Structures are given as structure tokens and as C-alpha cells.
């Protein structure tokens, strides 16, 4: 009998979403590039050469990132995505949680030049991809601000203080990531019961078109 190799991974029952939902969104799918930094988070390589991330580790890191964020002044947390598919998830996340979104192109000096009109001093920064959002990671590091980074198999740990290993390129995967973190933060802050659901769905978080 043929079996889906991706589902053979030993998954605990503590996943934040049913395994089928996570698998169908490809949250665990990486790229054909594997960095040494991301090796501890990689589960296996598929026959087609795609590296697959460890879903349990992803799950654990989403929980830890949510705990970390829930202890902060969220209005001073910047959430960035220069990529198109990250835009809607980031904006919805910020709307629900009260963080500051920075989507599209990042203007250099935003964190480092007090003379700049949009100057902002964050207490932490979340980036969807440290490669694409390299400028914001660099400025956050210059300011000594903790960086939480969604990272796929091709990312590095450079200047990141907390890695969330997952597919950071897929439209659905990014929606699920930010939806889950938002939900976990609300639970940590007791603004949502342990088994409660948010007013917003994953679809609400997903970039259309």
C-alpha cells in the first residue's frame, strides 16, 4: 500500500492545529537549499530534493514565541514582511494583537535615525524572512532589539534571537503562522479561553490574489 511519506513523521497530539490542516498548507515544506544553521530543525529530505521541516519543533517554537511576545508591550513590537504573501497575515496579526506592522519596503533609518519622520523604537521585531527582511534585521541588531524570525531551510540564524522553523514563503503557510501566534498570545494573556477560537479565521489572514 502506498503511504504518504510526509505523514509518517511522529507527531504528538499537542499540535496547535490538526495535522491534516498543517500538512495541506505545507507549513513544513522548506526549499531545496539547506543551511547548516537550520539543520537541527530539518526532519528529512524528500526524493524530489525538497527539505522538510520538523513540525513538532515548529509547533514548540510557535508556543515559545507566543509566550515571549505575551510578556512584552505589544504596541512597541514591529512585525515586518517585505514579501507580498506576508502582507495580509502581518496586517491582520497586528490588528488583532496591537503590534506595529511594517510591510513592503523598509526605509533605512527607521530604527536608527531619530531625525527621520517615521522613526520608531521597537522593543522586539518579528520578521517573516531574514533574507528578504535583512535591512530590518540589521537595524534591529544595531539597536539591541530581540529578533524573532520565521525561518525556512534556506535561512540563517544570523542576528536572530528566536527562530520559528517553518515555510515562510507559502501564502497559506504564512496565514497559518500569524493566525496561530495571534491565537496563542491571546490565550497567554487570558483574553481567549484555552479552547477558545478567535473572531477571525485563517482565511481572514490570508493574502488574496
Amino acid at each position, binding site marked *: 500500500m502506498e503511504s504518504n511519506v510526509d505523514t509518517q513523521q511522529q507527531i504528538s497530539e499537542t499540535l496547535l492545529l490538526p495535522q491534516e490542516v498543517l500538512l495541506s498548507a505545507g507549513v513544513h515544506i522548506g526549499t531545496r537549499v539547506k543551511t547548516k*544553521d537550520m539543520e537541527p530543525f530539518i526532519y528529512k529530505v524528500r526524493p524530489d530534493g525538497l527539505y522538510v521541516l520538523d513540525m513538532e519543533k515548529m509547533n514548540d517554537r510557535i508556543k*515559545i*514565541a507566543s*509566550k*515571549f511576545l505575551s*510578556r512584552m508591550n505589544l504596541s512597541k513590537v514591529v512585525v515586518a514582511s517585505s514579501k507580498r504573501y506576508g502582507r495580509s497575515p502581518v496586517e491582520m496579526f497586528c490588528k488583532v494583537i496591537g503590534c506595529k506592522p511594517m510591510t513592503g519596503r523598509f526605509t533605512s533609518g527607521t530604527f536608527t535615525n531619530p531625525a527621520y519622520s517615521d522613526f520608531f523604537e521597537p522593543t*522586539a521585531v518579528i520578521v517573516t524572512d531574514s533574507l528578504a527582511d535583512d535591512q530590518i534585521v540589521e537595524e534591529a*541588531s*544595531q*539597536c*539591541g*532589539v*530581540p*529578533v524573532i524570525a520565521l525561518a525556512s531551510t534556506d535561512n*540563517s*540564524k*544570523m*542576528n*536572530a*534571537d*528566536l*527562530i520559528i522553523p517553518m515555510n515562510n514563503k507559502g501564502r497559506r503557510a504564512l496565514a497559518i503562522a500569524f493566525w496561530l501566534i495571534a491565537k496563542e498570545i491571546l490565550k497567554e494573556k487570558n483574553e481567549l479561553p484555552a479552547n477558545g477560537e478567535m473572531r477571525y479565521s485563517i482565511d481572514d489572514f490570508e493574502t488574496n490574489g
Partner: protein
Amino acid sequence: MSTCISCGRKVTPEEKAVKMTCPNCGGITIWRCEKCRLFGRTYRCPACGFTGP
């Protein structure tokens, strides 16, 4: 004076170090020096055992 959790070196005020609480337990203040942060060196929380980044 603060020391880097990964290399044990003293963190100077001029360098681009980061100060944060342990992401997992929040019980410990963690300093990562500029180099350890840049190279993504592992840190371990002495209170809960969490290993990052």
C-alpha cells in the same frame, strides 16, 4: 557588568548586544554579545534549559 550567555565574555556598552528575558520561561535575563548573535551561536537558559536561537 553583564556577560554573554554563550561565550561568557563581558558585554561592553558600545557593542550591538541584545538583552532579553528567556523566551520560554521569562525568568532569566539573557545577554547575547554582538558576535554570538551575529554568528547565531547557541544559548541555553540556566533556569528552564531552553536552547536558542
